[in-house]
């Protein structure tokens, strides 16, 4: 293929937008690292954990080569990593950390601290299932368990979206004074290499100037941060945090459209709809499953099925208006959760149900659990779900588990069977 064809193809796919400096074939963890460099983060504190390690490995390389003028603090735990980010952010610096799973759980106390202090810290969390049993593979229970800490949460579908969302996140965080967690699926994004457009630094600088903290630690102007407060004021401060999260909805939408103007890529704000114009049945899901689900939707639509997709990009704040608007237009909504709240249901399903209770129009709602602990979500998995939605007027139970094996099946699947047909090749 000639150079002209090459340019043409990449132009059509948004990789030759004037804002693009270069296109690199990189893994999801490194897409995060490059975004942190472009955001001119000043303090990085992190503790390595599979599958997040690539994020901080690349950043330590970038900082040691002086390609980013940041303080890189090596810490002894994730709890300390977040403590360092809190200290840095209170002093007015732009701070970053990255973690995963058990590491995120260890941070839990300080997640409340960061949000309560209204600090615009940005963190990348590589979604990995919680142990035991030990797993390094993707599901979303780690981050969704942190839903009530006051952090904004995004879920990314591609490596490009990881980079773009980190840049958007600093802008949003510094407007609403809330910390933001950007989640990417373990291995399916973190260790997958694909083309990522790296924007030009000067255009990023225009979009995201340096942070100007409203309040910061300053010896010339002493203040107390996070001090004891009585019942006469705590509730009002909580209301302000609540209100900041409410306000974040519009800020997220605006920042996404501003990003689109500058960089030519948009993610729809809190949600993105795919093939929903005339859809009667819509599946809601998040992260990399969306990418694969698009293929299933295309296939089913080509066969004449009226199906569509809603990508839940932001989980906090929850896309209330967007979901109520969707509900007015469709007959059935399915929610595929890559997580489970024990004693309840999948968490996006739970929240969707809550949002619709007071909505004027309430379509039939179905909750599906799939892909826990890295179980592959294939186009067939998604088609099974659409098939269920097409063939049922109502769900048979509050949660429908997709692809669940019998105990006998899961025992026999653990060992890798060796080749019978080729095992006798003695000449090798």
């Amino acid at each position, binding site marked *: 293929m000639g150079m002209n064809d090459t340019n043409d193809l990449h132009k059509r796919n948004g990789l030759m937008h004037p804002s693009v400096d270069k296109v690199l074939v990189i893994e999801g963890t490194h897409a995060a690292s490059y975004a942190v460099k472009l955001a001119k983060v000043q303090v990085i504190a992190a503790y390595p954990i*599979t599958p997040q390690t690539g994020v901080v490995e690349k950043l330590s390389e970038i900082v040691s080569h002086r390609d980013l003028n940041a303080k890189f603090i090596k810490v002894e735990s994730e709890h300390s990593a977040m403590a360092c980010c809190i200290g840095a952010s209170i002093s007015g610096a732009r701070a970053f950390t990255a973690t995963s799973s058990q590491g995120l759980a260890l941070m839990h106390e300080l997640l409340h601290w960061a949000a309560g202090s209204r600090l615009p810290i940005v963190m990348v969390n590589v979604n990995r299932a919680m142990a035991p049993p030990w797993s390094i593979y993707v599901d979303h229970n780690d981050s969704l368990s942190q839903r009530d800490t006051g952090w904004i949460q995004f879920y990314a579908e591609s490596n490009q979206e990881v980079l773009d969302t980190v840049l958007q996140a600093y802008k949003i965080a510094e407007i609403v004074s809330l910390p933001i967690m950007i989640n990417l699926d373990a291995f399916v994004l973190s260790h997958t290499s694909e083309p990522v457009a790296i924007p030009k630094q000067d255009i990023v600088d225009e979009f995201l100037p340096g942070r100007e903290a409203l309040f910061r630690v300053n010896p010339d102007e002493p203040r107390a941060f996070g001090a004891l407060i009585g019942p006469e004021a705590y509730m009002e401060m909580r209301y302000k945090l609540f209100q900041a999260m409410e306000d974040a909805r519009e800020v997220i939408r605006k920042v996404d459209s501003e990003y689109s103007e500058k960089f030519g890529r948009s993610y729809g704000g809190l949600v993105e709809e795919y093939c929903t114009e005339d859809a009667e049945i819509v599946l809601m899901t998040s992260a990399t499953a969306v990418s694969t689900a698009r293929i299933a939707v295309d296939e089913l639509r080509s066969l004449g099925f009226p199906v569509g997709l809603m990508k839940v990009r932001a989980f906090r704040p929850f896309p209330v208006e967007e979901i109520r608007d969707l509900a007015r237009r469709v007959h059935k909504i399915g929610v595929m959760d890559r997580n489970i709240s024990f004693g309840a249901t999948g968490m996006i399903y739970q929240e969707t149900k809550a949002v619709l209770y007071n909505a004027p129009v309430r379509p039939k709602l179905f909750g599906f659990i799939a892909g826990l602990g890295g179980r592959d979500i294939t186009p067939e998995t998604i088609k099974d779900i659409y098939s269920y939605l097409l063939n049922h007027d109502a769900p048979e139970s509050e949660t429908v588990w997709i692809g669940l094996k019998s105990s006998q099946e899961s025992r026999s699947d653990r060992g890798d069977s060796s080749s019978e047909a080729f095992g006798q090749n003695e000449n090798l």
Partner: protein
Amino acid sequence: MIEIRMHGRGGQGGVIAAKILASAIFKEGRFAQSFPSFGVERRGAPVLAFTRVDDKPVRLRTAIYEPDHLIVLDATLIKSTNVFSGLKHGGTILVNTSASIELLKFPEEYSVAVVDAADIAVRHKLGAKSIPIVNTSILGAFSRFTGVVGIDAVVEAIREGVPIMPDENAAAAMEAYEAVKSTASEEILGKIKVN
């Protein structure tokens, strides 16, 4: 969409090779995605790495179950693991081995090629004789054998993608490009199409 599965052992560079392959394909104007087997990497343990190739951005984010092409970095894996699992009818198999191609017994539905990538790697000072780094040699052979990607793009991607010794790695790839032996005739070499 073309799907490639690479079988190697931890330390041979299979994961890097899959990534370099993706970069080379992108350089030629197509889209690619590469990923390792999602697991814990240990030196010497069987490792899988995958590359997808398409004319449009790759949206499919699942494991590869039915590859078009197989690359085997360590021939002993053929006896100990199910290397051929899911290989499509008419698929290709490229094996790093010093064994002569006539001695290999694979079903006729597959096109087979061999290259002594270990020997080439060692002569270019890539790894030790006990642990040769065969990943860049095998890519040169893959380019010639399948025609999925041109050698120029492979060499350029190797130079950018290897952590050290870009000249030696590039030279090894070019030597393997010349040295690969296939059951397919010369006219077919480089023009294999998988349905």
